[in-house]
């Protein structure tokens, strides 16, 4: 019963925050609503026995990534520059139709999917969470079965690091990061 109430609250809060994102005029508000829905999701993770993931969701997602979003939004002041313009006449209607279709489809599949999949094995997961425990189970699987994925993320991160370094130098040539030679953008300006 308690679980049901908590789930109800999570459901309403997560969905409410998501819908509010659609209508928030201000980018900062959008970001805050996103944080809200992410926190709600973290609780949903907890409810389903994914304890470590829930913590990570809060720490990294809501705590770091969204902070970066807010940081950029606020320092750039993009909130002021948002104008709602329609580039294609029917894009909004199209998007709503597509979204509604998608929502209906996925929800239908979701509500019936347990039958599709076969037996619900929630109890197995609960057993794993009791012994050896969520983090331990995650760690064991992560560092064996997903060894390659784990190492591959480092490549991804390296690409992102290098990318950020390149892009930072594209911001403005005045900010001579590595004492760059005057690039062609200055030629064009001149």
């Amino acid at each position, binding site marked *: 019963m308690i679980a049901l109430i908590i789930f109800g609250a999570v459901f309403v809060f997560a969905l409410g925050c998501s819908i509010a994102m659609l209508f928030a005029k201000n980018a900062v508000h959008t970001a805050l609503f996103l944080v809200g829905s992410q926190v709600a999701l973290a609780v949903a993770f907890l409810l389903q026995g994914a304890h470590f993931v829930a913590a990570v969701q809060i720490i990294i997602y809501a705590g770091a990534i969204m902070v970066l979003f807010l940081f950029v939004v606020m320092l750039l002041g993009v909130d002021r520059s948002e104008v709602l313009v329609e580039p294609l006449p029917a894009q909004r209607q199209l998007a709503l139709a597509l979204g509604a279709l998608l929502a209906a489809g996925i929800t239908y599949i979701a509500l019936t*999917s347990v039958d*599709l*999949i076969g037996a619900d094995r929630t109890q197995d997961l609960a057993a794993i969470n009791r012994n050896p425990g969520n983090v331990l189970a995650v760690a064991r699987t992560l560092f064996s079965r997903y060894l390659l994925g784990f190492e*591959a993320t480092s490549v991804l991160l390296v690409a*992102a690091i290098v*990318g950020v370094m390149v892009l930072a130098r*594209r911001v403005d040539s005045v900010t001579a990061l590595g004492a760059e030679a005057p690039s*062609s953008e200055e*030629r064009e300006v001149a």
Partner: protein
Amino acid sequence: MPEFTPPQVQLAGVAPEITLLVSALILLIVDTLIGERPNRWFLPVMATAGLVLAGAFAASTWGDNELQLSGAIALDGFASFVKISLAVFGLLTVWVGRDYLVRDALEDSEFYALVLLAVAGMMLMAAAADLIIMFLALETFSIALYVLVAFKSGSLTSQESAMKYFLLGAFSSAFFLLGIALTYGAVGSTALYGGRDPVSEPGIASFLSTSPTANTGLLVLATGFLIIGLGFKIAAVPFHAWTPDAYQGAPSPITGFMAAGTKFAAFAAILRLFDATLFSLRAEWRPLVIAIAVATMIIGSVLAVVQDDIKRLLAYSSIAHAGFILTAVIAANDRGVSGALFYLATYGLAVLGAFAVVSVVSGQDEARVRLAGYKGLFFDHPALAVALTLFLLSLAGVPVTAGFFGKLVVFGAAVQASYSWVVAIGVITSAIAAFFYLKIMVRMYLEESEGESSPLPIGRLAAGVIAITAVATIGFGVVPGPLLRAAEDATMFFQPAPETGQAPLGG
């Protein structure tokens, strides 16, 4: 369940990727250690060494056929073929890029490092035997490419197109991810193949071979979303909106690399996923892929006709080519897979060559990319014009070029699979496509150049790349046998269970 047992670690499957990662890191660090130099020749040299070594590693495992690293990587001829091709594409990109960067005063170690990382991601994509690895690989090369598209500093269009590319790319990967999630839900794993025991080591292939068809509903839905995610990367309609902008905004060598490499990697994933793993579900995914292929061929070639910027034109042409290759995916037979590999390899060479020419002709800061800029090119720079003609003829599929044979094998596969009507559409759109390739040739040969001909500095590396790709385009056109044989050897996907085997021959 999870008692920890250290997995068996064999590095042969990922040796090329490791090589590329290591050489990228070395390259970055060495550059900072050496400091400012007027001529940083060592950068392309190191990148070349890394790519050659990676290609050699990929070649050394030719003929192997096994799963490695807990079933995350397939070490098979298919992966080797794609990896070798990608290494070659990377090499050509690096060489053209070097001349381009020097000319526009943009040379940075990051360019080479990102190309290497992108190639590594693409290679991983081709070898991935697990959807999550596929996803990570896709993201790795996508992120590298977002940055490479934005690499020009002269014009804002470069960054703007990168933003569009990025937003649409991220959007599409969310769909791909949704597909992965649903697959995981349906199968209980993201592994493509799975182990012998479908309960303890689940995988898509073993799931499909053991479970009754009624249980595949969720997997079919997942397949739809996976198509969306990969459709973006191959620039299939209706997921093509980023292509013209990104192709136009990116530095020309990178545009060529995207056209050749991204397409190859994404198609490798599509072929492995659809023509091997999900083969038994072909009745479900085929209609969708056919619809996409037809739309892609038509939209790509029709919209290319009205372009007057050569990079946008080639972008639409690359969309049309994605449609042509999709006909081989539809065929879902051995000839289709080998045909697609052959097509992608030769298309990559031709398009890299074409963009090498574009990169040379465009001049400083890519000022000359309008079709009008190609007027009378034959009279000013006959060699460039002849080379570009060759690439265009190959793209148009005119005989004695490799592109013709590619079209033949790809269309042939679809005819064999009794999809002649799709090929008929392909044939009509090829004729339309010929029109816009011809348009460029008209400019080059049949019209006088405007104003005085300005000298075009042609770097030795770029000239070399153009020569290599031109020779290859003709060579694989006249003697397609060896490459085709290699592609046919490569069609052996890793097959743990006989049920996931190839399409039966026969039309």
